[in-house]
């Protein structure tokens, strides 16, 4: 499989390195010498120094033979033109583009159905706002993702010392849960991913990932001693595109929302476009301002400025001053592992969201979505089990799953089945598989169809 990536920024670089590791044929195009050098130094990929919107550069990159074109520069316009040019030279290449400007929101379908025929428009900001909304409503969750149009969720939580389950064996979890016991897929302990078995114990401080049906998530969280508290007051710092999207959403839901922004012009703009949201002009990391705005009564503090260091510090400050919960926007991946150590639990990243929406298109077999968990050590994949593939027609225990993988859910029409070794997957079932990175290519193989599939 050949993939051309236009733009070697954080997203382009990351996708390129993942695909190169999986043995795919990757070409990276960027104008910037430093960005190109970073690719050649770290990744086994072909590079071209030039503009990704140029037909000559795209031809040189081999667009005619490419399966997928990924346009992920930081400019919407360049991404659009790159797709337009690719559509002319090589119409059958699948095109994915990152387009962030909200003005384009209504035109995503038009871009798909008419030239430039972009198969998937990725707007990481929409995804991030969704993630923030999910994190807000789930007590204690540090990572949340969803499948099957939201009917199944996976949730990552830190196990508190006082929690009943701290020290419990996995096999005892169901006896200790009042209602339904959550299906625990993975544990991250000291930055290491563990797929626990019945005899393994959960420890305080573990980041525990479990899968649950939507309407039972709160019950499952209660098993981990995380209880829902209503959200009444929200304070947002930074009125960029994400800040504005989030504020409008909270506005509609009638949650008391305040938003702090440094730029007075932007403040005026927002005040005009938002209804009940209070727009404040000032610095979100200013202790006095936070005090004035009664930070101690805030249920969720969300730092979304362009500057991630500011976001981290503002969140720490807010937490210390009594905000009940903080959510912090981070872009640099190298900061992720630091966050829980300095006490920042809930982190969102538009780039990670972009990568997740791109990955599903690159996976083989009929993969509907694929979401990396923290640290990218493993993925949750949602796929359709196709006729003639190895996964259908026999009990799970008789299928040779690679080490480090687990089927965590089966959806048959409207029903959700939490599988056991005797469960049999039928064609057209939707399945959710959790897999370590090393196991992914083997999982892809299991999902693949035989020759007889039409």
């Amino acid at each position, binding site marked *: 499989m050949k993939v051309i990536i236009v733009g070697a920024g954080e997203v382009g670089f990351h996708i390129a390195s993942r695909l190169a590791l999986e043995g795919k044929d990757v070409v990276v195009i960027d104008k910037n010498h430093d960005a190109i050098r970073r690719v050649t130094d770290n990744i086994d990929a072909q590079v071209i120094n030039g503009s990704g919107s140029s037909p000559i550069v795209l031809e040189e990159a081999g667009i005619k033979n490419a*399966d997928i074109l990924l346009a992920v520069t930081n400019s919407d316009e360049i991404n659009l033109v790159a797709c337009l040019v690719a559509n002319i030279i090589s119409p*059958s290449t699948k095109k994915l583009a990152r387009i962030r400007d909200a003005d384009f929101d209504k035109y995503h379908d038009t871009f798909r159905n008419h030239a430039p025929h972009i198969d998937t428009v990725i707007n990481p900001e929409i995804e991030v706002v969704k993630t923030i909304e999910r994190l807000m409503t789930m007590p204690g969750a540090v990572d949340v993702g969803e499948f099957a149009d939201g009917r199944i969720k996976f949730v990552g939580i830190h196990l508190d010392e006082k929690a009943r389950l701290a020290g419990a064996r996995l096999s005892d979890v169901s006896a200790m849960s009042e209602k339904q016991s959550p299906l625990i897929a993975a544990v991250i302990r000291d930055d290491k991913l563990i797929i626990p078995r019945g005899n393994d114990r959960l420890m305080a401080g573990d980041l525990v990932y479990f899968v649950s049906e939507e309407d039972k998530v709160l019950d499952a969280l209660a098993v981990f001693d995380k209880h829902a508290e209503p959200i009444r007051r929200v304070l947002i710092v930074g009125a960029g595109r994400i800040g504005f999207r989030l504020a409008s959403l909270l506005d509609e839901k009638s949650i008391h929302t305040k938003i702090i922004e440094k730029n007075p012009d932007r403040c005026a703009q927002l005040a005009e476009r938002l209804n009940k949201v209070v727009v404040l002009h000032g610095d979100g990391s200013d202790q006095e301002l936070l005090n004035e705005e009664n930070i101690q009564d805030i249920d969720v503090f969300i730092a979304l400025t362009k500057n991630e260091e500011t976001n981290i510090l503002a969140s720490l400050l807010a937490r210390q001053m009594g905000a009940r919960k903080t959510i912090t926007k981070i872009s640099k991946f190298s900061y992720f592992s630091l966050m829980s150590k300095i006490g920042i639990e809930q982190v969102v990243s538009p780039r990670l969201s972009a990568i997740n929406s791109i990955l599903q298109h690159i996976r083989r077999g009929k993969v509907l979505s694929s979401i990396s968990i923290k640290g990218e050590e493993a993925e949750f994949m949602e796929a359709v089990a196709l006729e003639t593939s190895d996964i259908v027609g026999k009990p799970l225990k008789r299928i040779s799953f690679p080490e480090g993988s687990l089927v965590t859910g089966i959806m048959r029409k409207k029903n959700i089945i939490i599988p056991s070794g005797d469960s049999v997957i039928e064609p057209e079932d939707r399945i959710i598989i959790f897999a370590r990175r090393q196991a992914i290519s083997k999982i892809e193989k299991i999902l693949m169809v035989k020759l007889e599939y039409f």
Partner: protein
Amino acid sequence: MKIIDVLNKETILPDLKAHDKKGVLEELVTPVIHIAGVNKKDLVRVLVERERLGSTGIGGGIGIPHGKLKDLESLILGFGLSREGVDFESMDGRPTHIFFLLMTPENSTGLHLKLLARISKILKNNLFKEKLLNATDSDEIFNIIKEEDEEF
């Protein structure tokens, strides 16, 4: 059903030029689109999508790309030879030389499966494969297939 009943001389390509999967698919469909009166882009897209679910390169130098298409009136068969061989992501990881392209209408019944079975069956014959690989033009290829087809 006989292969020869559906194989048209015009859709036989004795010397494929492309070096990669997508290029070969584009080349294989080119003579087919005139006969079938379908859009090339749609056709290639169907084939590429099918390959994504699992390669039709079954090993032994053989690839049988296939798919279903809505606007097709009847089943269509194409053939191509690549002298150099192509990386078709086949199961044995070796280059692919012999290609049968099979397109069927969306509502087609079991017929296409029978044809697929027949194609994979005659390709088990190594002597036949050898002859195909050494053929020079479409007439010769047509006759070799015809001869083998009548054996059954």
